[in-house]
């Protein structure tokens, strides 16, 4: 399995504490990985470093792109911002979408930021929303959607650009258990069906149990790594090559699974 994201000897300090202590970590393409650990263990810091949100004090982070490997720790702010826009997708605990925009506009905005014209952006956004069970809700504002529906919008936004890695920080943390399971289904299946890599920070053992691999941090170090890698799903495109920007390629097994799971 190809490594898509590789961190070597990552170190990050905060005043009076060490958040990451010489961490080595590799994420393989198409894998879903749960990062768990107690509060203050460094899991969110690891996620933020891998996503180019935080700069490590020491160590190297490499993203394997189709053209050449890219060292995140050497990029400037503007380049990192562009990388996050184009290569990565994010799902936060509270959705963190724009309340004045409709569901459709929130998803389309991610594409518009990359220079895609508005019509194309909205068409693709509508496809994603429909695939995630939000058909007919495109014009609703976020205040008119339930917590679970808002998270689905966030999941659509994270993937509509064709991001190759999706980072999720406690994506079900603000939801009840039934909705939490539902959102997790949507997240895991949509990411897998489109051949993306998922890194999810969670406190919830149920979330971790459903990921292919579980990495446990404690005091800034990786203390356990299940390393269990199941076979990669049938990908609509070879991970690490051209990333898809539609919910799933029709006709593939993954697409069938995906549609079966989400056409509610």
């Amino acid at each position, binding site marked *: 399995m190809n490594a898509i994201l590789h961190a070597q000897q990552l170190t990050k300090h*905060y005043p009076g*504490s060490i*958040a990451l202590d010489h961490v080595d970590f590799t994420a393989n393409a198409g894998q879903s990985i749960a990062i768990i650990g107690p*509060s*203050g263990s*460094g*899991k*969110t*810091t690891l996620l*933020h470093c891998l*996503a180019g*949100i935080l700069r490590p004090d020491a160590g190297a982070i490499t993203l394997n792109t189709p053209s050449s490997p890219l060292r995140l720790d050497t990029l400037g702010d*503007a380049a990192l*911002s*562009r*990388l*996050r*826009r*184009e290569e*990565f*997708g*994010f799902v*936060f*605990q*509270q959705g*963190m*979408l*724009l*309340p*004045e*925009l409709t569901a459709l*506009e929130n998803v389309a*905005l*991610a594409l*518009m*930021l990359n220079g895609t*014209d*508005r019509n194309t952006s909205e068409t693709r956004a509508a496809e994603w929303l429909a695939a995630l069970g939000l058909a007919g809700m495109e014009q609703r504002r976020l*205040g*008119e959607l339930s917590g679970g529906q808002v998270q689905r919008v966030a999941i659509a*936004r*994270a993937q509509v650009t064709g991001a190759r890695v999706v980072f999720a920080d406690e994506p079900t943390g603000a939801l009840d258990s039934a909705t939490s399971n539902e959102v997790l289904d949507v997240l895991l299946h949509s990411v897998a069906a489109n051949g993306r890599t998922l890194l999810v*920070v969670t406190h919830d053992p149920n979330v971790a149990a459903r990921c292919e691999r579980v990495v446990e941090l404690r005091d800034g170090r990786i203390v356990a790594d299940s390393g269990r890698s199941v076979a990669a799903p049938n990908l609509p495109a070879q991970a690490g090559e051209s990333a898809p920007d539609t919910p799933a390629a029709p006709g593939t097994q993954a697409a069938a699974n995906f549609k079966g799971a989400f056409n509610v």
Partner: protein
Amino acid sequence: MSSLSMALRLTPYLARSNGSSFREAGLRDAGLPILAFGTVTALLLTVAGGSQVFWSWSDDIAGTYQALAVVAMVLLIIPLLTLGASAARLAARRRDDRLASLRLLGANSATVVWMTVIESTVLAAVGAVAGAGLYACVAPFLGLIQFRGQAIGSHAWLSVPSILGCVLAVCVLAAASAALGLRKVVVTPLGVRTRQTADGAHWVRGLIAAVVVVVGVVAMGMLSSFGAFIVIIAVMGGCFGLALLALNLMGPWILRLRASSQLKHAKRPEQLLAARTVLESPKESWRQVGGVAMTSFVGVFVGVGMAVADTMGTSGDAEATLLVRDINTGVMITLLGSFLMVACSAGVNQAAAVLDRASTLVALDRVGMPQKLMVAARVKAVMSPLFLVAGISAAAAAVLVLPLTGTVLLTQPVVFLTIGGVFAAGFLLVRLAVAAGTAQISQVLARPERYASMDS
């Protein structure tokens, strides 16, 4: 224990326990409302001081000056009240999270309302005293302005009781706005959320405004039949008020129409975001820029009229020449004052909006939205309505005095250059204030850990 007495006991306690975060958060919690109230008070005192000059005269022409001063004050008082209300809402919004915690601890709604009112009033009092100090610094410069051929000097100084009265008025405004502002939020033990009431701007507003205009036109048409001078003045004043009312009714509706069109045609992200920001609350957008509407109208209307009067009929009359010049001075000062208040209001509102949505901005930065795009969207959301409002008002005035406009353009082009210069300076002032407000975005993104939950 009554809600008020509980609020009176809890407020100082929480203010004390909040001491460290008070210092740490500084601008976020108290600094901005205090700054806003200070600006409001300084401007209120400046306007009152400037107007007081005209009441110190008692000769034949004093009545004309006093009537014009009343018009100028009416024009300035609306944006001033808007700015005051913005400052009060800002003060009330700072307390959202703590209010929810209090509900969780068992405080009832009335206690929460009283606490908000008390805290807002205290912030207003501190700001108002600082504003009075600022006025004391500005007053000597105000005295340099010339009316009737000489500097107004110490006549612009207000008496201590007048200053105290203005400070008290600002505190009352803050208390009332805080209580009214809470109507828009629901404070429950689980948090504070905005009521899901659509802040639309219905076309009925346009209809009512049209009716108001018709009533005004009919009243003006019957002016000569009213006979007594005092009645005519009262009717004219009433019609002026009706025009302002019509404008305030139509304003949000026009901004909504314009933003809907911009939303439809938006191609770039910042255009989409700016249009949605205006549509989210057209009334809020109008409150920010509406003050410029009537002053723009009056600025062009009176500017052109006075230029014509200057050219045609006052060459031999020194007093009339002075009056025309003074009216021009007054119009330009009113226009600039109006822009200054809009600028303050826009700056305060933008800073508050950025702080209110800091966690969302941090999240947007994380998903790769460039900071300059966030700023561009906010700037456009203020400047676009401002250009529209000022442009429509100035154009309406120019069309009304069209026959004169051509004459003035030929004989006194400097009048248009002056009016244009004042508009340009006003726009620049608002733009700078918005830049100051949106500068908060850099500060938020520089310390994201304050605004986003980070589990290290």
